[in-house]
C-alpha cells in the first residue's frame, strides 16, 4: 500500500510524525507557525503542537541559526526553517563556524543534532537574489551533512533520518517540487542518509543528478529509450557524505557518465562527482564525463533568459547523445 501525496505533504508528514515521537523536536523560523511557512510546509503544526514547539521568529537569520545551534547543544533537536537558501548567507557564520565546528573543536563533547531546512531554485522569476542553488557551498564543509531529495518518498524518509541524525544537516528542498506528487509508503519508514539510489536501471550511460534535474533526467531517459539509448539514472540524494560507491559502481557498468546539476558548473557538485568518477572508474570510461549545469551567470529575471540559464530535459538528451557519439 502507498499513498500519493505531494513533496510538501511528505515533508509535513515527516515533521508531524517526528514531533509526535520526540518532544525534544522543535520547529522554528520566520512565519513557520501562524502563517504555516512561506511554502506551507509547516501548515497545521502550530495547531497540533502549540507555540512552545512551533515558534515564529523575527527576521534574523543569524540569530535563528544560532538559536537552533544553542538549543541543540543542550539536548533539543531543532528543525530550523530558513525560508530560502538565499537567506542562509546571512547565517553562514553560525552554520559554518559554529554548528559545524563545535563537535570537532570540543573533542567530541558537543553534539549538534540540528536540521536546517532551506528551499532553493530558479525558475520562478525571482531574480538573482532569490534564485540560487548553493548546495556546493555547504557540501564543501566537513562536519555538515547535505541532503537534497527529489521525490516525495525520499523527502519524507530523508527528513525523518535527518532529524534523528546527530549532526547538523542542511536539508535542501526544491521550490518547484513542492506540488510534485509521488507514491509514499504507508506507515513508518526511514530513508538512509549518505545513500544514493539507482532510480532507473540501464546499461548504456549513467545520468547522475538530484532535486529537480533528477526528475528531468528520468524524463530524458524515457525519451532516450525511444532513441535506442538505455540510460541508468542515479539519484544522489545526499550530497555530503557522497555515496561514491553507488555512483562509481553504476559508471563501471555503463562506461559513460553525464552529471546534471542546477548549480553553477564551476566548483559545483558536478565537479566533485566527476572527480570521484575519475578516481574510481577511469579505466572503465569510454568517453569523457560530461556535465550539464546552470549558466555561469547570476539568475536573470526575464523569463526567456531564465529558462535559457537553467538545465532542461533537452540539454540532458543532447549531452547523452553527444557522449554516445549520436549527436
Amino acid at each position, binding site marked *: 500500500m502507498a499513498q500519493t501525496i505531494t513533496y510538501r505533504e511528505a515533508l509535513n508528514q515527516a515533521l508531524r510524525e517526528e514531533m509526535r515521537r520526540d518532544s525534544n523536536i522543535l520547529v522554528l523560523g*520566520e*512565519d513557520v507557525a*501562524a*502563517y504555516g511557512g*512561506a511554502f506551507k510546509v509547516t501548515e497545521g503544526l502550530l495547531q497540533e503542537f502549540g507555540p512552545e514547539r512551533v515558534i*515564529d*521568529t*523575527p*527576521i*534574523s*537569520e*543569524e*540569530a535563528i541559526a544560532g538559536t537552533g545551534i544553542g538549543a541543540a547543544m543542550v539536548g533539543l533537536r531543532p528543525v530550523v526553517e530558513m525560508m530560502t537558501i*538565499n*537567506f542562509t*548567507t*546571512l547565517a553562514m557564520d553560525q552554520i559554518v563556524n559554529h554548528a559545524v565546528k563545535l563537535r570537532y573543536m570540543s573533542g567530541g563533547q558537543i553534539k549538534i543534532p540540528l536540521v536546517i531546512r532551506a528551499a532553493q531554485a530558479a525558475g*520562478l*522569476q*525571482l*531574480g*538573482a*537574489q*532569490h534564485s540560487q542553488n548553493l548546495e556546493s557551498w555547504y557540501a564543501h564543509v566537513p562536519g555538515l551533512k547535505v541532503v537534497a531529495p527529489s521525490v516525495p518518498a525520499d523527502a519524507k524518509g530523508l527528513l525523518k533520518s535527518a532529524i534523528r541524525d546527530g549532526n547538523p544537516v542542511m536539508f535542501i528542498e526544491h521550490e518547484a517540487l513542492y506540488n510534485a506528487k509521488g507514491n509514499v509508503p504507508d506507515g513508518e519508514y526511514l530513508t538512509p542518509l549518505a545513500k544514493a539510489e539507482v532510480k532507473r536501471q540501464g546499461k548504456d550511460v549513467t545520468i547522475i543528478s538530484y532535486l529537480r534535474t533528477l526528475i528531468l533526467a528520468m524524463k530524458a531517459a524515457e525519451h532516450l529509450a525511444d532513441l535506442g539509448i538505455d540510460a541508468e539514472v542515479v539519484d544522489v540524494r545526499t550530497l555530503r557524505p557522497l555515496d561514491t560507491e553507488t555512483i562509481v559502481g553504476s559508471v563501471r557498468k555503463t562506461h559513460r557518465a553525464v552529471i546534471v546539476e542546477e548549480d553553477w558548473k564551476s566548483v559545483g557538485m558536478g565537479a566533485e562527482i566527476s572527480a570521484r568518477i575519475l578516481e574510481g572508474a577511469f579505466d572503465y570510461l569510454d568517453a569523457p564525463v560530461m556535465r550539464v549545469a546552470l*549558466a*555561469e*551567470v*547570476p539568475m*536573470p*529575471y*526575464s*523569463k*526567456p*533568459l531564465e529558462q*535559457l*540559464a537553467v538545465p532542461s530535459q533537452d540539454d540532458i538528451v543532447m549531452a547523452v547523445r553527444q557522449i554516445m557519439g549520436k549527436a
Partner: protein
Amino acid sequence: MAISEKRAILTKNELISMYKEMLLIRTFEEKAAEMYTRGKIGGFLHLYSGQEAVAVGFISALRPDDYVIGAYREHGQCIAKGTDPKYVMAELFGKVTGISKGKGGSMHLFDIEKGFLGGHGIVGGGMPLAVGVGLAIKYKKEDKVCICFFGDGAVNEGAFHEAMNMVALWKLPVIYVLENNLYGMGTPIYRASSIPDLIRRASCYDIEREQVDGMDVLAVRDTAERSIRLAREHSEPRFIEAITYRYRGHSVADPGQYRTKEEVEEWRKRDPIVRMEKYLKDNLFITDDDLIAIRDEVNAKVQEAVDFAESSPFPPPDALYEDVYA
C-alpha cells in the same frame, strides 16, 4: 481624518504634483496587479498601495542628485525618484527595455542616472549599502544625502544594527526611513520585536529620530524637509519612523489572512490620496473637473507604460551572458 497643519511651505504646483505622483504610483500598482493575474509579470510582486505618502513625501523633498535606496517594495520609490513608469513596467514584464534590462524584475529596480540605487531582495540588505553611499558623499565633500527605506521587519536583522552604529559613528548624511506598516510578511511587530515602539531602536546609537504619520503626505514632507536639511548641512544621520499600512497582502500571492477585514478598512479610511484630494479641494479650490483631468492624465501614462512593456521585446539570448563581468 484631517491632514497635518504644521508643514513646509509649498507652492500650489508642488502640492498638485505630489498628489499626482501618489495617484500615479497607486494606479501603476493596481495595473501591475492586473498584469500579474494575466501572467504578464512573473516572480514576486510586492505592492505599495497605501504607503504612497511615504515615498512621495520624502522623495519630493530631495534634489535630483540625491540618492535613494529601497528594499523589494520599491516600485513607488523608483517612480517618485523620477524613473518613467514605462521603464518600470517593462522591467516587471521582463523586457529588454526595462530599467534593469529585464535582468532584475520587481525586486531589483535600478536607475543610477536618477540616483535610485535599488531594489534589494534581502531584508535589511540595503542598510549597510546606505552607509557606503553616505561615506562616499562625505569623502567627496558633496552636499548630497541618501535616503534608505526599509520595513519594520528589517530592524531585527544584524545589518540594521551594524549600519546604524557605523552611520552614527562616522556622521554620515543618511536618512533611514522605517516604513512601519505593522507587519513583516504575516508577522505583526509585537510578535517580532522586543519593543513595539520601534523608533527607540535608534536611541542606543544616539541618532536623532522622529515619528511621522505615514498616511499624511504633508506631514511626511515636512519631516522630510527638516531631516534632509539637517543631514545635508551637518552631515549626520537621521532616523524617521513613518507609520503606514499596506492594503494588500505581502505580495500578490498572499491573501493576507492574518489581518481582519475591519483592520484593513480602518486604515483605508486614512487613505493618503483621498485625504490629499480633500485638502486640495478645501484649500486650493481645485475642482472635481481638475481632479478628473489629473486622473485621465495618470491613467494615460499608466496605459502608455503597459503598451510600451507589451510591445517591447524580451532580451535576446546573448543577453544571458552580458554584464556578468565588467
